[in-house]
């Protein structure tokens, strides 16, 4: 039987590799489209970024769940592990949002760069999460210049988390209702 820690390594490699490719393609997509909107590379970068992001998003739940079960004491016992969890869910939310908007709203010129920026930030969240994993297991990573991410966690009270969830869901419902009326 494969151990949680081993499975976590496999799944995080998948997530990090996919998100890194997606992030690179999002950045290049913006850079290339600034120079030449008609370039074939623009379409290729756009497709590659979204497919890689989708693949990474599929692997993400496995990475998070195996990460939680491979920690002997749980994510709530270390600020570093807590930040890993918060960053990975933030990155996952961004990635899902990017894919959803691309699917439902298309690739409009006006919001292309904003869309790519969200995709890149999602990648940044995942790479930082992976880097924190390096700090946790090896006490060394490429983000040693960010000590506050390893020592400090901004924790919200339960009621505020629930309030944020309800607020965003409410805003999405209002937005959807408004769009239906206009449509």
């Amino acid at each position, binding site marked *: 039987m494969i151990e949680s820690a081993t499975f976590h390594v496999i799944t995080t490699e998948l997530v990090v590799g996919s998100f890194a490719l997606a992030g690179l393609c999002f950045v290049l997509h913006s850079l290339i489209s600034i*120079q030449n909107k008609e370039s074939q590379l623009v379409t290729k970068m756009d497709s590659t970024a979204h497919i890689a992001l989708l693949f990474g998003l599929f692997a993400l739940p496995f990475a998070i769940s195996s990460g939680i079960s491979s920690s002997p004491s749980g994510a709530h016992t270390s600020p570093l592990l807590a930040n890993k969890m918060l960053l990975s869910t933030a990155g996952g939310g*961004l990635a899902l949002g990017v894919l*959803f908007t691309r699917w439902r*709203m298309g690739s409009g010129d006006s919001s292309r760069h904003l869309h790519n920026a969200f995709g890149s930030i999602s990648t940044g969240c995942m790479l930082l999460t992976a880097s924190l994993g390096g700090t946790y297991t090896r006490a060394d990573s490429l983000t040693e210049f960010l000590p506050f991410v390893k020592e400090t966690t901004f*924790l919200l009270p339960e009621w*505020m*988390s629930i309030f944020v969830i309800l607020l965003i869901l409410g805003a999405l419902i209002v937005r959807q209702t408004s769009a239906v009326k206009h449509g």
Partner: protein
Amino acid sequence: MKQKLVLILALSLIVPLHVSGNPGGVGNSLENMQCGGACHGDANQNATSNLQLSLEPSRTVWVGQPTEIIVQVSGFDSSHDVDQIGIFLLSSTNANNDLPTSDGWTILSDGMGGSNNYIEYASIDSNVLTHSWILRAEEVGEKQLYVSVHHGDNSGNDAGSPFFGVSQAFEITVEAIPENLQRIDPEYQPPTSREVGESTTLCLETIAASDVIIEWREPSGESYQLETIQNNVCWNAVLPSALTASTIEWRAILEGEGPQQTTPWFSLASTEPTWEADETALMLQSIAHFVLFFGLVLLVRKPDRRDDEFKAYTEENL
């Protein structure tokens, strides 16, 4: 454009080429020799350590009884300029299944508040480093133990390389214990760590002991004796709480029919209370993060296609 892309990719692959093990260490843990490559990476990259490694067991090692294994690492300064060192206690050099626990030993204490076969020292203060493990043999017979080290080096031709060293085999004979000799119960597990400000009530289970005295000593070496009270199951004594993060040692002196028996010194590390958050709040916040950032992307994005369709529809009617 393609050339620039290839150049950027090539440069990004070249940047993280500096490889030097884990400068921060990996923490005390149960590790096979070479940590399965997780500590210093590929074993072929290691330089050979010139540190001298020795191991000294107790004079008599009884089966089922705690025994002190003293490890000495010497040659600092003369051989290496070392900041941090990791020391392994191994039962073979297979680099697989070579933990003492795989060869009929139980690690009761690693001297640093845990029960690991691999421990790390963050700094070296003298030419000789002495460290003790407390083991318990589970079976009678001949056994072998090895000492191994991982470290870096700030001087010499291989400065900056990861270093590895392993000792010769040290033979240990585990003997059967005389039947009526007073002793600790073979199942007894001594506490290895506690939080600062917390006292520790020992409950020492013994066999054939008529009296037990507990002796403990501060890090400075000053020692104290505690009387024990026998209840049905064990001998009770209370070790006082520590005011700061530190390690005290304690041992038991057993009286009975046989000659007085003294256990090895058991280490008891006091650590600062660990950071802990409300697990439910953290889970809820994770969900909130997911929903928040998902919603954020949707809410700041203008629905281009629908706008265009609506615009086209209104223009047509005009």
